[in-house]
């Protein structure tokens, strides 16, 4: 058989689907917003939004639910990107919510869980009816069943047993006042697809995604950077390690992985190889099992 004409690669097909989803939202909703965490998935989502409405500007604001525990590189990246793209940035501050008494800080100092009320408060305040999120279905089992247009009631809640059927590319955007839709344009992307796309598009990322030397401590096999939000516990010995971040979130609960991957190609090789070596089970070396543990953590293993 000769070279297939009118061929569309998997990345092109994924991109086309994501652009379609984003345009559908802007056409059907009044007040969409893109949730930007500084993570690679939301960075890719921002790039897709840029492409979906070119040569126009992105026709919705970007919102960062800011736990106050940030990597400085990520904040700098965020501010540079929103200024390049000329989009409005809304910061929903967890610190302010703590100060005003909306939420209470948990004992362990982690702010992951108290982000949710802050987000919902901002949704109500700005009356957002559609929220783009960077979540992917390959991330965890429950997500595998979530819709691209995922309905939330007027309390912002998801009911997995009562989801709207989603056929073809016909997304149901009808909601009552106070209700909203979470939209996941990257639903069908995998971690490897995201990295391939970052490489293809030449998207630059905060440096912490690439291997660098950093002072860390080992907590149950997870490597945490020492910073103002993550003080040393007694008996802990910090050491310098060559690491990179595989995911980027709140600086007080995001761990690094040992890595020498200091270029995009090396990261892609590492992400692909991690899965393969993972099959090596018990004899998996430290490098790999730490990345896996981070994945498991993201999947809610503990």
């Amino acid at each position, binding site marked *: *058989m000769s070279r297939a004409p*009118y*061929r*569309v*690669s*998997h*990345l*092109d*097909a*994924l991109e*086309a*689907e994501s652009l*379609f989803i984003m*345009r*559908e939202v*802007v*056409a059907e909703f009044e007040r969409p917003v893109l949730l930007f965490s500084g993570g690679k998935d939301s960075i890719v989502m921002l790039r897709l939004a*840029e*492409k*979906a*409405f*070119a*040569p*126009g*500007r992105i026709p919705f604001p970007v919102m960062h639910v800011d736990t106050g525990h940030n990597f400085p590189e990520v904040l700098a990246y965020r501010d540079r990107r929103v200024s390049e793209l000329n989009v409005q940035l809304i910061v929903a501050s967890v610190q302010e919510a703590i100060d005003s008494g909306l939420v209470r800080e948990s004992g362990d100092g982690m702010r992951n869980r108290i982000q949710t009320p802050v987000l919902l408060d901002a949704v109500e305040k700005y009356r957002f009816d559609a929220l783009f999120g960077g979540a992917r279905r*390959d991330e*965890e*089992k429950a*997500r*595998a*069943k979530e819709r691209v247009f995922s309905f939330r009631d007027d309390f912002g809640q998801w009911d997995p*047993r009562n989801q709207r*059927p989603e*056929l*073809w*590319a*016909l997304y*149901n955007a*009808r*909601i*009552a006042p106070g209700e909203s839709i979470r939209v996941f344009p990257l639903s*069908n992307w*995998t971690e*490897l697809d995201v990295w391939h796309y970052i*490489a*293809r*598009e*030449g998207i630059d990322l905060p440096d912490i995604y690439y291997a660098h030397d950093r002072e860390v401590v080992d907590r149950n096999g997870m490597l945490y950077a020492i910073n103002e939000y993550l003080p040393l516990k007694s008996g802990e010995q910090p050491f310098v390690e060559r690491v990179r971040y595989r995911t980027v979130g709140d600086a007080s609960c995001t761990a690094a992985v040992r890595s020498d991957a200091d270029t995009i*190609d090396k990261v*892609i090789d590492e992400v692909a190889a991690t*899965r*393969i070596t*993972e*099959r*090596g*089970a018990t004899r*998996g070396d430290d490098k790999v099992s730490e990345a*896996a543990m981070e*994945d*498991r953590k993201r999947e809610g293993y503990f």
Partner: protein
Amino acid sequence: MTAVVETPAQRQMDLLRFATAGSVDDGKSTLIGRLLYDSKAIFEDQLEAVEATSRSRGDEYTNLALLTDGLRAEREQGITIDVAYRYFATPRRKFIIADTPGHIQYTRNMVTGASTADLALILVDARKGLVEQSRRHAFLCSLLRVPHLVLCVNKMDLVDYSQEVFDRIADEFTSFAAKLEAPDLTVIPISALHGDNLVSRSENMPWYEGPSLLHHLEHVHIASDRNLVDVRFPVQYVIRPQSTTVADYRGYAGQVASGIMKPGDEVMVLPSGFTTKITNIETADGELQEAYPPMSVTIRLADEIDIARGDLICRPNNAPAVAQDIEAMICWMDETRPLTVGAKYSIKHTTRSARAVVRGLQYRLDVNTLHRDDSATSLALNEIGRVKLRTTVPLLADEYRRNRTTGGFIIIDESSNRTVGAGMIIEAG
């Protein structure tokens, strides 16, 4: 333009979406678990957790269904209740699996999974042969016009890898599928549990000369499943930047549903019927010399005509129907209220929304026997029937059998806002 950095893994990859239907008994979850495991899409530690759970439950072998049943309720109750999407890749292709439950009470889930599938995988137990469920699954795949069908005759190990058993089932299914106008059909003898004919050809069945399942999934020719003949471009969004740098810019963004579009082509815009020419086909990466499905592009036209979301760009000599009277097969998906004659609903068809009234129900179809009941007056959850609709505004519609994008629509209940039905157009006039 951006630099193209290709790694070996992505160079030749395209995308295939397939749907599976069945229950744990058929070995469907075992099969999917195997495909994911052999393509490294699941982690060893996930597998170990599943093995431990299986042991504690007293299962004789690892219950890979535990890998695929994602919702807590499903794992606790041991049932699959919803469509789950899974991902794996080989160097040739990326695969998206829409994994759907097989029981008749989940017909709507299977219809949902099949709606976007290039290929459907149906499993039968070699000891039992074709059962009511296998016929129903084949019928639903043909109703949804899934272009490729694969029948996996599973548990061949339990019939001593008998060619005779396989041939009998394959013949019976082939003659049944012929009645359905089923498209491309492939029948493969497998043992999901032992891995026979999954990744490579099994030594236990030297009489079988066809491909292994994975080889077939990797090589089945899907590029020509797309309709590249009828130009259909539903306008999704009008890009009109309020900016001085691109002051007079006006572009029509959307995804090519079918056909091949080129700059210079004469086109017609529906429903207005105005004709003009394509001047540019654009993406954020630059201009294109042609666009085809499933590309998302922005079309610019020579003349300033009034075009809005929901309009459709086609060729003057090849246009869809502009119709308010629609006949369609409808699968009803609402457990609270049935579809009834005289009821009014909202419908979404391509990028166009309309209201519709049910003018008549010609018959309800028994999805197991294909018997037509023309005395039916309603369609309840999971029931399928041929329905006449009248819409408030014209739809720009093709027959579903010719075009899955311009021939399909969803029905939305106007009070609950829920998606309550899926329609496949038979006639638009």
